[in-house]
């Protein structure tokens, strides 16, 4: 190793931050080179001088002050986690159930929807009674406008409203 390379790595050498084989090479060079050896010594002396920088003791009550501030800030830190800081999150109750219970709850909701759809279809298809135009007029409160002018929007509406399609027929 030449002096230029040794000097460029002297700090790492003094700090023992290099592979063992490289340290051996550095040792060899420094053993034979007084100039590089003296430079290594100056680097060590900087370390000794830095050691003279005293630090006052930790201020009394430091941890108590940190904890007092932590207690003030901790609720804020916790609140930030939830988008709904005060109210329960939507569907929180669902998350608190066990998996089988969650499945059962979803199945019941689905069943209720299907039942509702079925019953609604049944009601709409029940009976074949056709409503006459006159009845439709009174049902829909159009008697004030009777007779409905022919080929008017009202008469078309009442015609549609008065005819109940039989099962299987298009309206």
């Amino acid at each position, binding site marked *: 190793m030449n002096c230029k390379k040794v000097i460029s790595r002297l700090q790492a050498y003094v*700090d023992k*931050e290099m592979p063992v084989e490289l340290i051996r090479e550095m040792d060899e060079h420094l053993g034979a080179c007084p100039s590089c050896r003296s430079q290594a010594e100056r680097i060590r002396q900087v370390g000794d*001088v830095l050691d*003279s920088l005293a630090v006052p003791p930790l201020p009394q009550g430091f941890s108590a002050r*940190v904890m007092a*501030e932590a207690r003030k800030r901790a609720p804020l830190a916790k609140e930030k986690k939830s988008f709904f800081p005060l109210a329960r999150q939507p569907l929180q109750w669902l998350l608190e159930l066990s998996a089988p219970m969650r499945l059962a709850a979803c199945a019941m909701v689905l069943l209720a929807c299907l039942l509702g759809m079925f019953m609604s279809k049944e009601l709409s298809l029940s009976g074949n009674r056709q409503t006459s135009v006159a009845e439709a007029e009174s049902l829909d409160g159009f008697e004030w406008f009777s007779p409905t002018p022919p080929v008017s929007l009202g008469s078309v509406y009442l015609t549609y409203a008065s005819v109940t399609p039989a099962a299987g027929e298009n309206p």
Partner: protein
Amino acid sequence: MDFERNGEMLNEATDEKIMKAVAGGDLDAFNDLVLRYQSHAWKMAYRFLGDSMEAEDVAQESLLKILEAAPRYRATATFRTYFYRILTRLCIDRTRKKRPASIDNIPDVPDPSLGPTEILIENERRGQVRTALDALPPNQKAAMILRHYEGLGYAEIAQVLGVTPKAVERLISRAGASLQARLSHF
């Protein structure tokens, strides 16, 4: 790291386990963390800033930032590295705010074996070391303090500063050369 509280040896839980508890809102666990790291926070902040009030402020803030960030903490590096990263950033930011320089007037405890003249010389020397350290660019100062006083290896310093280990070696070399030039008369 073991330490005592009220005369009892505290649980040997790792820092990472304690952080998990802190993330869950456990302030007692946070208190344990404070007791473990308060001294390191204070010493590094004081060595970096040279002012007791600033150092206490920064040391306190570094620990509180850890509390606030706990829910987001992921152990991708050791907690120690994470702690020094936060503390170093705060120290560098505080330096960059360019507050008026204040030389701490807290007197050092004099060495009883030294005479008055020696004490004066010693204080003068410490003042010059302080000045030389303060003259370093922030990254060089941080690297030197983390290496020499806190005993971190180059690889860990690299993680703290967000640079490569080779860059850390260069930072410390340059810092060392600069300190040598200013303190060569010692």
